């Protein structure tokens, strides 16, 4: 396959722990197969600053927790054919959304004001640290999502089942044992 025929794949890291990306790297030798069929055009593990145009498939790890996530999610949607919620945080909000029962300012005060160290931005943007959204939300509440890979993190078999279907241009249909949250 000529290089320019390759599928343009991106992975994005929003409000999550990067565990889904670690699990993605656990694809091991399958990464070589993947590299033959796809170009990784944007990823936390690739040195690309701006989310590019004309991406075929984007895996999005993490929930939408701050204004930067929101902006990047919208770029991802506008520039990708298929967007996949990758892991429980993107799908449900998961651990990232545990803070939702607290008010943002109360939360930051509790963690930083009452604790040691400098206080970062609260709900107001300061141009350095992105302001937190009032509530953490799953990706599909912000942009249209085409497929879901559950799991915290999804194990490599799950990821491969989904990614190989997408590479083949087929819809993601995970078997029952690959559909568990957690």
């Amino acid at each position: 396959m000529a290089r320019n025929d390759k599928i343009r794949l991106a992975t994005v890291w929003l409000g999550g722990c990067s565990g889904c990306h670690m699990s993605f790297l656990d694809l091991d030798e399958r990464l070589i197969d993947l590299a033959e069929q796809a170009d990784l055009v944007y990823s936390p593990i690739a040195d690309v600053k701006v989310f590019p145009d004309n991406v075929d498939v984007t895996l999005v790890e993490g929930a939408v927790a701050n204004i930067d996530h929101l902006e990047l999610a919208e770029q991802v949607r506008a520039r990708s054919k298929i967007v996949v919620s990758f892991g429980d945080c993107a799908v449900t909000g998961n651990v990232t959304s545990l803070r939702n029962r607290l008010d943002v300012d109360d939360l930051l005060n509790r963690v930083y004001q009452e604790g040691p160290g400098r206080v970062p931005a609260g709900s107001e943007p300061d141009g350095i640290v992105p302001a937190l959204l009032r509530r953490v939300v799953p990706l599909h509440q912000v942009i249209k999502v085409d497929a879901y890979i559950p799991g915290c993190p999804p194990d490599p078999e799950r990821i491969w089942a989904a990614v190989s279907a997408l590479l083949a241009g087929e819809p993601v249909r995970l078997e029952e044992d690959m559909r568990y949250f957690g």
Partner: protein
Amino acid sequence: MSVVTLTLNDELISANSDQSLLEVIREHDIYIPTLCHMEGLSERGGCRMCLVEVQGSRTLQAACVTEVAEGMVVTTHSERLRKYRRMTLELIFAERNHVCAVCVMNGHCELQAVAAIEGMDHVRFDYLHPDLPMDISHERFGLDHNRCILCTRCVRVCDEVEGAHTKDVLGRGINCRIINDLNQPWGSSQSCTSCGKCVEVCPTGALFRKGATVAEMVKRHDFLSWITSGREKNEWDYAGQAPYYATERRKE
């Protein structure tokens, strides 16, 4: 007891007239999900997972609380049922904080399993993220309202099997809570016998033995049938059948 004939998924079958639809459906090895149903307890019809279509009835019926009848025509799987089951499941997940990844029951939970079986790949509703407390005042057990789906198995087992009726339900709708005695800390309950039956029947991580961390909680749903029918089946040695529960009890 008389025998009735009914149609189940286009097949003519017979059943005893005092059977519930759910019993008959299970007898014919047809899977429909359940959450509040438990062998050995009365039926509640609360979780709405076992909804089926009954010809001539405009509304869907919960199979666990519907008695079989002569000439009934029942469908257990259809697009309409799939839609309703999935929506109900999503509402259950949205109502409280079901965060599987950090739950004691991760990997052993009935709610988690039903979601996977029914193919609930995401929740379309807004999560409510209620600020709910956890009651860990009991010496051996904990109650986490965040994981509770109000199936009332704990209420029923405490009343119907243990005979203590420590647990009950407070409030209505979204304000429903499982309570102990007169809505007081579990540890201060005078009626609780600390038998642990409520913990073992709980389908999720809402009731747990203290000391269990994420994914460590394994419940013995089978112990109830041992209590209720072990005598008829001549099963005296629960330790042999359920080593974990027996070991826990022996430690005390």
